[in-house]
């Protein structure tokens, strides 16, 4: 407990807020746990830094039995579904399902060990000065362009609106494959969003950007844009075409089919001996 307290004191709150995946320099023994925490867990969790996407993990080893932690980390949803009251309560509180992590028992124990140490020997340090910069309308505009894909990511990753939507006048019809991001900034805060963009904890997103990571500048711009979207959401009134979009699509289809029918009306549809074949007796 004293170590935890110590950690809380030694790691300045602000720094912890901005903690991200910066490669931890850790003593050899604790390297794996520290590394994994820094690159994966830190996207959503802090150790003594307060709630981010998920709960603050300080003292988690004391709060929950080790067995339970192993199960939860491997598959939180399985636990929720099994009706475990603690898991259900956590899910109800945080609303974001924690992704499954295919780590071995010993790997998980190492991470937990690292947490127990309070992040000592590799605690995520406040990274990138960029994150501390104040955002400018320039950044917001760049973020919008990146989000929509009008500006390509430097490493050629897919544009955000392939899967996500944001309620914003400038954005038309983003994807519906993943979460709607209008209020994500409010929910997770800048560092959380930034952490997720740097090292997505979601398997699909991770796959998509694994070999095409976003640059720091890009992340900053996107965070700025999402912040802007969150703050100004009340004033945004993007047009909702609703059913009209569907009906106009249908009308277009009918029009095109009619056009094709007209264009190829002299098409040879039947074989020349169609009449003969039609009256032939068929075996059944």
């Amino acid at each position: 407990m004293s170590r935890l307290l110590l950690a809380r004191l030694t790691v300045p709150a602000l720094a912890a807020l901005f903690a991200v995946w910066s490669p931890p320099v850790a003593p050899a023994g604790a390297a794996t746990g520290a590394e994994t925490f820094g690159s994966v867990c830190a996207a959503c969790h802090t150790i003594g830094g307060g709630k981010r996407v998920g709960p603050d993990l300080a003292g988690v080893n004391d709060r929950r039995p080790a067995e339970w932690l192993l199960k939860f980390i491997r598959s939180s949803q399985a636990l929720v579904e099994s009706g475990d009251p603690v898991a259900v309560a956590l899910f109800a509180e945080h609303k974001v399902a924690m992704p499954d992590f295919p780590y071995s028992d010993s790997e998980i124990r190492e991470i937990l060990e690292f947490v127990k140490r309070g992040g000592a020997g590799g605690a995520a340090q406040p990274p990138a000065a960029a994150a501390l910069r104040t955002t400018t309308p320039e950044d917001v505009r760049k973020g919008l362009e990146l989000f929509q894909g009008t500006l390509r990511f430097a490493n050629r990753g897919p544009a955000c609106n392939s899967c996500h939507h944001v309620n914003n006048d400038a954005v038309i019809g983003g994807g519906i494959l993943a979460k709607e991001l209008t209020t994500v900034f409010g929910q997770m805060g800048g560092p959380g969003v930034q952490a997720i963009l740097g090292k997505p904890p979601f398997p699909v997103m991770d796959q998509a950007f694994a070999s095409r990571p976003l640059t720091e500048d890009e992340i900053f711009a996107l965070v700025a844009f999402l912040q802007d979207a969150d703050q100004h959401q009340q004033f945004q009134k993007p047009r909702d075409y609703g059913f009209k979009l569907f009906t106009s699509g249908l009308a277009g289809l009918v029009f095109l089919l009619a056009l094709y029918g007209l264009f190829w009306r002299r098409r040879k549809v039947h074989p020349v001996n169609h009449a003969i074949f039609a009256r032939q007796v068929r075996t059944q």
Partner: protein
Amino acid sequence: MDIRAQISMVFHLDKCIGCHTCSVACKNIWTDRKGAEYQWWNNVETKPGTGYPGRWEDQEIYKGGWQRDTNGGIQLKGAGKKKGLINIFHNPNFPTVEDYYEPFTYDYLNLVEAPAGDDQPTARPVSLITGEPIDVKMGPNWDDDLGGTPDYARNDPNLEKLSPAEREAMFQLERMAFFYLPRICNHCLNPGCVASCPSGAIYKRGEDGIVLINQKVCRAWRMCVTACPYKKAYYNWYTGKSEKCILCYPRLEAGLAPACMHSCVGRIRYIGVLLYDAERIQAAASAADADLVARHLDMLVDPFDEEVIAAAQKNGVPDSTIKAAQDSPTYRFVKEWRLALPLHPEFRTLPMLFYVPPLLPVVASVREVADEQKKKSLNEISKVWPDNWLYDTSTEELWGTVEQVRFPLQYLASLFSAGDTGAVAARLKKLMAVRIFRRFKTVGDVSEEIMTKVLADTGLTQETAEAIFRLTALAKFNERFVIPPAHREQALEMLEFTGDARGSTGFGFRERPARGL
């Protein structure tokens, strides 16, 4: 003058017995493959009939070949730059597999393997495309079996020009006749297939004019299938490439006749080089219908003419090819004797396969003769016919029978001369004249006077008549097939620099030897 050489063919229709040996020879060599089962690069049709694919001659259906435009030029009827581009993903005039026929085999194994039962096992027809049992609706020569039915013979597109009375007369029982029309790719001088190909995959070989589809370049647009009015470009649904008759070029390069010609039982086929003036192609292809045949023949030039020879040499035609052109049986039939005609010249592709139109079966006259004396002189056991009518095929009234041939001139003209009955009649008269001449010589029941008169009428000399007879009836392989040496070494040198291979591994390795080099 731009003299080039072209391998051309002549089919003598009076000699075809409709045995389909040619088709089978071709199929066994080239189209016995998946996706090509329905393709008959060589097929033999029964005329009158609708042919294969059904009603192929009707370009209102298939839109093949060329048509004259308003400025006297020619345009492809159903393909070409504009129409081709508009219809590139959706070809509206495309023959379907039912127009050819669904290829099938029989379930022979069932005959041997069927379990014991009350009924005799049968071999059901099975589709070669789906593998399912099918009802056979059509075959590559359906007309042969169903020629007399109103659905087939009477739907021959060539009958359209005939008056209803003429048409009826053709199908009277006593007059009913048919002939065979073997067809291969014509290796045209103005090929619609080549002109239509959006990928530029089809080309006409420079040295002998054989039209080929490059299988690596073909992109399955299938424009050639539409554009060839003879429907001799086929689409292989399995390989996704179009294919056509290659005139057995690997055999030709080895000095052998194409398989269909080599195997032809009726010996109806001739192959030889024709020299033509490429500058006249345009005039020939865009001539008015009435002049089509004449322009077509004008294009073919005399291989003995000094000027022609010089021009050919200047164009790089090898001397051996010029020599082959001089010995060519096709030059004789087509140009010298003017006995052969192109099939459907009105499609304007300038086909290089010519047909000697069918004279047979000749119409005989029946007349009463006084043969009492003759009968009395016979031995008593000999069979004596009670009547005294003579079924006379020697034709007392000479040309009368040509006008009354079994196939109305108009019908033959629709096939072979774009409606010019004169061109067909002239050829039939020559054939008749040679017949009469030979009858005078061998049977002896025609007077010399008549023989001389028919020869004079048709402008033949006795020597020419004899030569026609010899090439028609007696010619051996080497006279029927005069194949120029291929000179592949020259073609090869045009494609690659032989110095590249010099000093390396001899003739080269197809596969590197296992022991290494």
